[in-house]
């Protein structure tokens, strides 16, 4: 028996450990280095109208939810109705970051699934996403009135996360 012949088995065992680990874990947020730091600056055209601009300055003076999305992201499709409902029910200020997407796809997507955003920044290169430390789509940030990031959610927002985390935090931040 050659050691080389054991390599496939070894690779497979690593995979099994990973899969087994995946079975036991639920999505959890990990601390982002950006928490309690100022929101990274950006200035991008809006998705719906390229002449409009969306920048980090828009976040100042109110508590803002900033949601990273893309039309190619299947998890976003699950998340979207929850955001739409959330925006409608709680009058929350939600901005979007449309990440590495095509404008036409993004517009169509909003047309079909609804648009919970005041505006979405069109980040076709993904550079702003990198500045914001986006791992993958979707991600959601909460930014306080002074423009400081106070919370980051990796993966889709659920009703439970909104009720348990996002809404209490927004209420608290609004009083600050």
């Amino acid at each position, binding site marked *: 028996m050659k050691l080389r*012949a054991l390599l496939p088995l070894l690779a*497979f065992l690593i995979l099994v450990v990973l*899969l*087994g680990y995946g079975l036991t*874990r639920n999505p959890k947020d990990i601390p982002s280095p950006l928490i309690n730091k100022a929101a990274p600056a950006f200035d991008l055209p809006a998705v719906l109208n390229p002449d409009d601009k969306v920048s980090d300055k828009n976040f100042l003076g109110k508590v803002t939810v900033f949601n990273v999305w893309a039309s*190619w992201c299947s*998890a976003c499709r699950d998340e979207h109705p929850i955001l739409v409902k959330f925006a409608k029910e709680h009058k929350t200020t939600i901005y979007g970051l449309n990440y590495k997407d095509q404008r036409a796809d993004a517009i169509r997507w909003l047309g079909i699934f609804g648009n919970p955003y005041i505006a979405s920044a069109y980040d076709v290169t993904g550079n702003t996403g990198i500045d914001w430390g986006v*791992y993958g789509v979707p991600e959601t940030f909460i930014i306080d009135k002074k423009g400081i990031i106070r919370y980051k959610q990796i*993966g889709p927002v659920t009703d439970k996360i909104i009720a348990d985390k996002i809404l209490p935090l927004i209420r608290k931040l609004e009083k600050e």
Partner: protein
Amino acid sequence: MIPELGHFSLILALSLAIAQAFFPLVGAQLNKTRWMAVAKPAAHGQFIFLSIAFAALTTSFINNDFSVLYVATNSNSLLPVQYRISAVWGAHEGSLLLWSLILGIWTLAVSLFSKHLPPAMVSRVLGVMGLISIGFLLFMLFTSNPFDRLLPAAIEGRDLNPLLQDFGLIIHPPMLYMGYVGFSVAFAFAIAALLGGQLDSAWARWSRPWTTMAWCFLTIGIALGSWWAYYELGWGGWWFWDPVENASFMPWLIGTALIHSLAVTEKRGSFKSWTVMLAILAFSLSLLGTFLVRSGVVTSVHAFATDPTRGVFILAFLGVVIGGSLLLYAFKAGNIKSAGRFSLFSRETLLLTNNIILVVVCATVLLGTLYPLVLDAMGAGKISVGMPYFNYMFTLFMLPLVFLMAIGPLTRWKRQSINDLLGKITIIFIISVLTGIASYFMLGTISWSVAGVIALFTWIIGSSLINLYKRVENKPNKITALTTIPLSFYGMFLAHIGVAVFMMGVTFTSHYSEEKDIRMKPGDSLDMAGYNFQFEGATEVNGPNYRAQQGSIVISQNNRKITTLKPQKRLYLVQRSPMTEAAIDASLSRDLFIAMGEPLGNGEWSIRIQYKPLIRWIWLGTIIMAIGGLLSISDKRYRYKRKRLAS
């Protein structure tokens, strides 16, 4: 009573599977003929009881027996009968039963068409398939019994998911499973050969038709899924790199590599341990796909309802089957001697390149599929890597593969002189480049990358034709000589052309599709891609278990009416779920695709109109590939060898 009969049949099938695994495998090791003889009767019996179980579940569906939990969850008395039958495999439990039944069919086929094989080999192959069957039957009986009763019985069923109430779903899963499960035959042959230490070209020749057959089914199965997604999801896309699509695509990639590597092992006696590895991998990826779909570790539109015990069970099963075979490989593969030396430039080298590229592509797809899971395991939440990654990586690796695909069949085994090859292909190469350049300047709006693909298309077709010509070049009567070429050559010829056709479809659809989402009131019209679309308004129509708003759109070109399309927005009454039924005017050169969006009041609708050039070529290409596969199986070489060995 009928469900209990089904349940009992499953238990009997399990007992027979145990007999089919134990006696032949041990018997082959100990050389006990009478133990080995158990294999075939056990396989036949198992097939019969699986059929009874399947028939029992189908009967419960047809009779609307809502005292069966699975039927109550997935059917309804208003559901048309053809969907009641296809609902059998519409959800987790029943699709597992289908999986087992199909494994039973393949096992039966192996037992019937293996008279020419040495008894020890047949026993081992059937024994390994029995082992797999045990795993799935245990899984079904312990975690996912489709015959569980619901007491008291439901008065009405919850209906089948409306997305699945479609012709595509009737045939897509059976085809796909025929492919997935079919790789278990190649797998069983590989394990049997490792156990018996008989890895020779005879083994490769026996495996080849089975592998190609499974590959054909998988090709068609995947294509059907893509076609279904195209017209049924109302989105107009045909491939999404969804984890479950990837789960079916990875075994296909490895299966394609395996087909090519088996050719080397059969003809030259080389690549033996590599071929065994691919056979193990192809089926392992089929199993991994099953795990991904049914355990809930990845998010997907296809994912079945999840249950942690199922995940743990399948993972344990994966560990035993794949881990066990890789362990066996580790012990035995070191002793495999590959014969057949070859020089750096030869058909072997090109086929090795083919294999490496396909495996690398499969690895990138696996990485992209599992990357979200890796992050998830680190507690980073569920995310999508997304189409940009997959499209980029896939194109990056596949273009060189397709380029080499044209050269491979023209090269000789063992050693190929470069000058000789250049003599065959230089002209075609120049013609292809010129075609590309000409199309860039003549077709107007074309981009260089599309012109490149046109050149590549010409390159594949041209070199395939050259290859065909070379086969009859020195024959006195070239036309009759064409009939003497083995069918397996035509199989390869067609399969490669299928790839070229597919590539053209993908390129044109992704570059030149036009689409508009517009607001239309009755009488409004839109001009797009040379067509005029006039909206005539929407009316209400009723189906057996849904209500629909049906739009009517007249399409004309140069003021001549072509057709009227009637897309629907359906509301399925039981699940209260809306569904978009797109209407499509299909032709070889383009599809016109219309889907209804939302009603906007006053008879106005948002409507999506798409123009998709050459999209049919995508599925046409896959059909051509599958026909190619079928042709090579029909090659008389396989039957001739059988007769000779039998006598």
